[in-house]
């Protein structure tokens, strides 16, 4: 069953047709990768899913409900969490505070005026945040300034923050961009582990073929704003159209 259904989505920026006519269906509890050369419209598509952009045409349904016209925080509360290309965390706050914020968001919703309560009295929130930090092996950094952490740790924290909300769909925007091979492999292992332990759907936009082919169950190839093919990794590897449009190019580059 499809948890995310994208139908006939188009988006135009002035004279540029960023997305032509995108149809995409992400099955529940699958790992779905969206690949494509630069300028293929991957990020535009992602932004249409999370409420940052509103497509000109078409519809985006999450779990049977339309996400179009909803604000990013509303879409998040529906169960879609997003991991950014460069880790977006609360740099001025401590690691523990970073972890508590999504826990509050999960429990209290988009806004609650808890101005005279004390954080230290929120036992369930503190407990959950500590548990998540332990799971991600960040617990010994709990009092650290989040901005002072290494990039790999920031990525882990960001993923942990998304997971703390128990999302049904986790969107990752080039999660290993700019990472060394070792960090990339760690991230792959982490994502595999997450997939094993939870009922979660993962949609991932990625440049790195190594990451895509180690994780994805289905792959959609996007080129010039339209999906070229959608298939399993093995079929994608051998697909002549894809080789021509995309893979050949990157293999040469590599």
């Amino acid at each position, binding site marked *: 069953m499809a948890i995310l259904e994208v139908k006939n989505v188009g988006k135009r920026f002035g004279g540029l047709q960023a997305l032509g006519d995108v149809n995409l269906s992400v099955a529940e509890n699958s790992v779905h990768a969206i690949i494509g050369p630069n300028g293929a419209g991957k990020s535009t598509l992602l932004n249409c899913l999370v409420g940052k952009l509103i497509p000109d045409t078409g519809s985006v349904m999450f779990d049977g409900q339309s996400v179009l016209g909803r604000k990013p*925080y509303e879409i998040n509360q529906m169960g879609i969490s997003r991991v950014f290309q460069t880790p977006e965390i609360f740099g001025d706050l401590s690691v523990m505070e970073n972890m508590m*914020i999504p826990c509050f968001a999960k429990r209290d919703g988009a806004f*609650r005026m808890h101005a005279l309560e004390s954080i230290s009295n929120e036992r369930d929130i503190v407990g959950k945040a500590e548990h998540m930090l332990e799971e991600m092996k960040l617990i010994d950094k709990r009092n650290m300034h989040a901005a002072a952490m290494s990039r790999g740790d920031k990525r882990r924290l960001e993923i942990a923050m998304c997971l703390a909300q128990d999302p049904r769909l986790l969107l990752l925007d080039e999660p290993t961009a700019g990472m060394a091979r070792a960090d990339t492999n760690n991230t792959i292992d982490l994502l595999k582990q997450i997939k094993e332990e939870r009922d979660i759907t993962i949609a991932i936009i990625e440049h790195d073929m190594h990451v895509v082919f180690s994780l994805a169950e289905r792959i959609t190839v996007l080129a010039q704003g339209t999906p070229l093919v959608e298939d399993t990794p093995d079929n994608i590897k051998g697909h002549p159209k894809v080789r021509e449009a995309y893979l050949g190019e990157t293999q040469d580059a590599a």
Partner: protein
Amino acid sequence: MFGLNKKDFGLMVIVAILALAAPFILNPFPEGSAMAQFNAGYPDLMQRLVIFGIFAIGFNILFGLTGYLSFGHAAFLGVGSYAAIWMMKLLTLNVIPAIIVSVIIAGLFSLLVGWISLRRSGIYFSILTLAFAQMSYALAYSVLTPITGGETGLQPKYTDPRILDGALEEGQTPRANLFGLDMNQGFELSLGGWVFTFNAGYYLAAVVMLIAFYLSIRIFRSPFGMMLRAVKSNQQRLNYTGLNSKPYTLAAFVISGMYAGLAGGLLVAMDTQVGAERMFWTASGEVVLMTILGGAGTLIGPVLGAGFIKYMENIVSKINKSVLEQWFAFMPDGIEDLLITLVYPFVGKGWHLTLGLLFMLVVIFLPGGLVEGGQRIGRVFRRRDANADSVESDAAEQRKPAAE
């Protein structure tokens, strides 16, 4: 204790002691001595110190936590003052209803201004708030003269209706009171050469300031306060974490507007008059200076900044040429004149120049304000202790082989 952790409770106690003992602390020099002009322990100034402290504490909840820089907070102070004076004209000279109503009216007004201004962030937000404040000033100064008294401002008169109080006799000056306790009332305590003034108005303002400070600590330590800091740190992440930043910032804006209204109401309770200049943009700028100078985002910083600026405004500005001549009288004539010429531009009416220089120094060298300065000094002392220990142990290490 009282929902505070040990450190915050300690800070609260220190502030309480400082506020309640201010008549002593601010009057360190004996009456009639050459230094007596540096005494700040007179009621009018002490009241201003704590009232502008309240103003800055509230401003810090918006600016220090969320990073939204409002350039129009004097408007809420002014609206609070007008509301308070109308309470004194229509209802009673008791300050309690005046203060409560000033907080409510300023809160409502800030809800309107915040709701519109918070559609934008960064510099556009600042300009919108500035525009609102200048509009309020212009309205108060001219168009709304029937309500605000225009150029002349407002003060209670014996002819006002005041439905809760008995009528005043003709020509009698209406005085603000707290259930009969005149705000101007007080007593002087002479100890040797020192004279300490205890004033009812000051103590009312000080107690209100302590309550305001206590509430601000609670807000800082609450989940709400954490969300506000998250707004400042990364609003994008906050929105993608399922939290709506708008009501958080609006709530912070209204809370700080209510603090400003409280300060405005207290100003009227201490000195029963108000004019439109209270809303002028320089007054809005002043609270920004206070907060940054003291340390934005810190608990005690804004209070320090407010105290510092109000002290300079009232004390340094009083140093005139004849005072300088007195100070440098012991020097040879030529040097005396030279020194007076050098120092004079920075004192008296030139106190803004000194303030400006200090502000520049703080912003460049102490981005965390006076609080950071204090912390650095503290750290130097602690490091020196640590160094002293390690030096001694090193020396001990070296002595050992020598002894063998």
